C-alpha cells in the first residue's frame, strides 16, 4: 500500500510541477500530499483548510444527463457501419481529497447504424464500479484520482442483413477498468477535468439469436480505451449544482468467437471494432 502512495506522490509531483504556476507552492503542496499519503502530519494554510473543509463536507457527486454519440462499427473483414446513438447516464462519485475514491457509473445509449451489408440497431449498456485513491496537489487546485474496479458492458445488436434473416447478437463482457481522473480547478466556477480509462476484458461472451441457449466465449480484447474532457461549470455559489459538458472518445473491441466443432470447424464469428465519439451533458449535484 505504501508503494501505491509513493507512486501517487511521485505522479503528483511531476504533474503538479507543470500544471501550476507557483513552483514553490507546488513542491510544498505535493510534498504535503506525499506526507499525507504516507500517513505523516502536514500543515494547513487557512485558505486550504477552508477549501478542504468545504470539499470534505461535500464528497458526494451525483450526475445525471443525456448524450449524443456517433458510432463507427466494423466487423473484421466485413464492411463498416455508421450511425448515431442517443441515451442517458447516471453516476455517483465519492471523492475525498487524499483519501478513498469510489464511484458507480451507468451508461445507456442506443440507435441505428447503416452499412452496405444492412442495418444494425445497437443497444449499449455499461455499468462500472470503481474504487481508488485521490491525491491532491497545487493547493488542492489539482487532483488526481487513480482507480480500478469492475465493469460490465452489454452490446446488443439487431442485425437486419441485406440478404438473409434477422440476427440478434448479445455481447456481455466483463472488464477491469484501470484509469486516472484529473481535476484542474481553473476558477471558482469552472473545473477542467480529464479522464482516461483502460478497459481490458476478462470474460467476454456473445449469444446469437435465433438459436438460443449458448453463450459463445470470445477472445479477450485488451485495447479498449475511454478518454474524455469533462468541463465542469459550477452553477451556484455553494458549489452544490453543476453543469458538466463532457466530450469523449471511446474505442472498444469485441473478440472473435473461439468455439470449434469436435473436428475443428470454427464458429467463425468475427471480432468487432467500435469507435464512439460524442458528448455527455450532465447536471450534477454535490453533497
Amino acid at each position, binding site marked *: 500500500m505504501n508503494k501505491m502512495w509513493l507512486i501517487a506522490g511521485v505522479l503528483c509531483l511531476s504533474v503538479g510541477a507543470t500544471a501550476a504556476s507557483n513552483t514553490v507552492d507546488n513542491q510544498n503542496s505535493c510534498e504535503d500530499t506525499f506526507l499525507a499519503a504516507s500517513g505523516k502530519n502536514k500543515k494547513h494554510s487557512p485558505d486550504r483548510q477552508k477549501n478542504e473543509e468545504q470539499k470534505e463536507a461535500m464528497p458526494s457527486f451525483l450526475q445525471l444527463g443525456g448524450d449524443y454519440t456517433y458510432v463507427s462499427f466494423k466487423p473484421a473483414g466485413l464492411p463498416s457501419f455508421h450511425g448515431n446513438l442517443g441515451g442517458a447516464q447516471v453516476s455517483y462519485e465519492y471523492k475525498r481529497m487524499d483519501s478513498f475514491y469510489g464511484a458507480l457509473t451507468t451508461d445507456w445509449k442506443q440507435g441505428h447504424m447503416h452499412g452496405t451489408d444492412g442495418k444494425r440497431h445497437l443497444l449499449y449498456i455499461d455499468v462500472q464500479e470503481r474504487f481508488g485513491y485521490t491525491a491532491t496537489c497545487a493547493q488542492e487546485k489539482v487532483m488526481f484520482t487513480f482507480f480500478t474496479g469492475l465493469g460490465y458492458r452489454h452490446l446488443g445488436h439487431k442485425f437486419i*442483413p441485406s*440478404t438473409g434473416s434477422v*440476427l440478434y447478437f448479445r455481447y456481455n463482457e466483463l472488464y477491469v477498468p484501470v484509469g486516472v481522473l484529473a481535476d484542474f480547478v481553473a476558477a471558482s466556477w469552472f473545473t477542467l477535468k480529464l479522464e482516461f480509462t483502460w478497459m481490458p476484458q476478462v470474460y467476454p461472451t456473445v449469444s446469437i439469436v435465433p438459436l438460443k441457449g*449458448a453463450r459463445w466465449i470470445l477472445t479477450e480484447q485488451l485495447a479498449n480505451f475511454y478518454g474524455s474532457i469533462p468541463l465542469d461549470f459550477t452553477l451556484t455559489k455553494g458549489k452544490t449544482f453543476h453543469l458538466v459538458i463532457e466530450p469523449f472518445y471511446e474505442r472498444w473491441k469485441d473478440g472473435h468467437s473461439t468455439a470449434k*466443432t469436435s*473436428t475443428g470447424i470454427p464458429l*467463425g464469428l468475427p471480432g468487432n471494432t467500435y469507435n464512439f465519439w460524442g458528448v455527455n451533458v450532465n447536471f450534477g449535484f454535490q453533497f
Partner: protein
Amino acid sequence: MKHFLSLVLSISSAFLFGDDSATIFSKDRLVQFYDEFLLEEKLYLSEAGVGSYGGVYDPFTPPPNPAAPPFKSGYLPMALVNQSGYPDSQVYVLVTGDLTDGATQAWGQVDTSPGSNFGVASLVVAATGQNATQFSCTLSQLPSYNAGNGNTGRVLYLPQITSGLVWFSIGEALSMTVNGNSIVHPSYTTTTTNFDTFEMTYLLSGDPQVSVDTTAVSAFSIPLYAYLSGATSVSANSGVYQPRSYIMEQLESAFASATESSQWSNLVLKNGSTVLRCLSPGQAISASLFDENYLNNSASYGYSYLSNLLTYYNTHALSMTVGVTVPSTATYNYTGSATGNIFSFTSTNGGPSVTFEAFANGPPYTSSTTYNILEGLNLVNPITQPTAGTAADAVSKLFEEAIVAGILPTTNTVVLSSLVANQSSYYKVNANLSSPGGTTGPWYDLYSKVLHEFGYIYTYAYDDALWPQVLLGAPFTNNSTYVGITIRNSQ
C-alpha cells in the same frame, strides 16, 4: 441428500463413461449435438453475411477440392461440401445402386448414430414395401469435418457398389418405391422436389476401381462439382459450379432465342413460377412436352432434318469408323447410304452390315425416330437393343452422337477420335443442311449445347464418347482415395 448425491454421481458417470447406446447418455451424442448446434449457428451467420459456412467463394469460379476427409478402411469416403444455400438439415442424400454382382438393386442404409460406423452406408437389397424415405438422411446427420478453405464438409462412407446413384434433394427426402426387386426412380416431370443425381461405381474388381461422373442425361437441377483424388482419367474434376438460377436463366434465354422456341422453352419445367428442373429433350418427349417428331416435322417447321439427312446420303456416302468389342475387338470402316427412309451401312474391312429401322414418326413417341435418337435408343432395334459392343450398337451410337452434336450431314469420315478432338465444333448450325435447315431449328441438341458451356457434364446418353472429360476414374487406394462433391448454389 443421499439420494440426490447418488443421482448426481449416476448422471456424472453416465456422461463420463457413456457408450453409443441410444438409451443412455453418450459423450458422442453430446459432442454431435454440440457440433450440430455450432454448425447451425454458423449457417445463420453465413446466411446473414457474417462469417462463412461454405467458405467465401466466387460463384463463377470452380470450387476448391475438398480436403481429404477422415478415412475408414475399405470404404470410399464421399466428401460433401454444401454450398447450396440451404442448411445441411434441408439437403437430403440417398444412395441407390447394385450389389457387386451388378444385378441386385439395393439401397444405401446410412448409419447416422455417432460411433465407429458413423456415416457408413451398408447396402440393403431392395424389396417390395420399402421406400426411399427409409434410407434417406440429411447432410446434418452425417459426420462433419474441416474440408479446408473455410468449408465445412460431411462424409458418407460407401461400400463397393456398381451403377451407384447418389441422390440429392432439397427440402425433403425423395419418395421411391420398389417394384418387384427394382427401385422405381422418381418422375422427372411430376416430382416437385428439387433433386439431382450423381453417378458412381466403386468396385475393387473394376477397371478403374472407382469411377464417378456428373450427369444431366435426364434433367438438370442441382449444380454438382466433383473431384476424385488420385484420378488417372483425363481430368480429376467434372460437373458444373455456377449458380442454379444462373444456369436456368441461360437455358431459358437460349431456348427463347431458338427459332423453334415454342418447343425448346418447354424443357424448363416449372411449378407456378418456381423452376423445378430442365428436362433433356428425350425426357421431355416422353412427357409430351417436346415434339416427338421434332426432327421430322416439315408441316410444323417448314423443314425436316431427317428427310434432309436421307436426301443428302442418297447422293453422298457417309463414312464412319467404329470400334467394336463383340464378338471380338476390332475397328471397322463403314460406308452408309440412304435409300427411301432406310439407312444401311456396309463395311469395307470385314465388319457385319448394319441396317437401321426405317425412319418413322409417332405417335406413339416410342415409335418415333426423333425420340430414339434424342433418348439414345438403338436405331437398328430400339426395342430389344443390340448387345453392347457389337457393330450394330457401335454404328447406331456414333450416328446418333453425330446428329446430337450437329455433325451430320458431312462428307468427312465420322470417327470418334476426330469428334473428340474437335469438341469446339459441336452444337453449331451445319453448313450442309439444305434450306431452310440453317435458319430453323436448331437441329442439334440445344440443351446439351447450353449445359456444356458451363462445364463437363453428361447431357446425352452417349456423352461418354463425346465428352470423355466427364468420367473420372481412379484406382482405389485404401485410406487415400476419396470423392469430393460440392453442392453449389441451388436456389
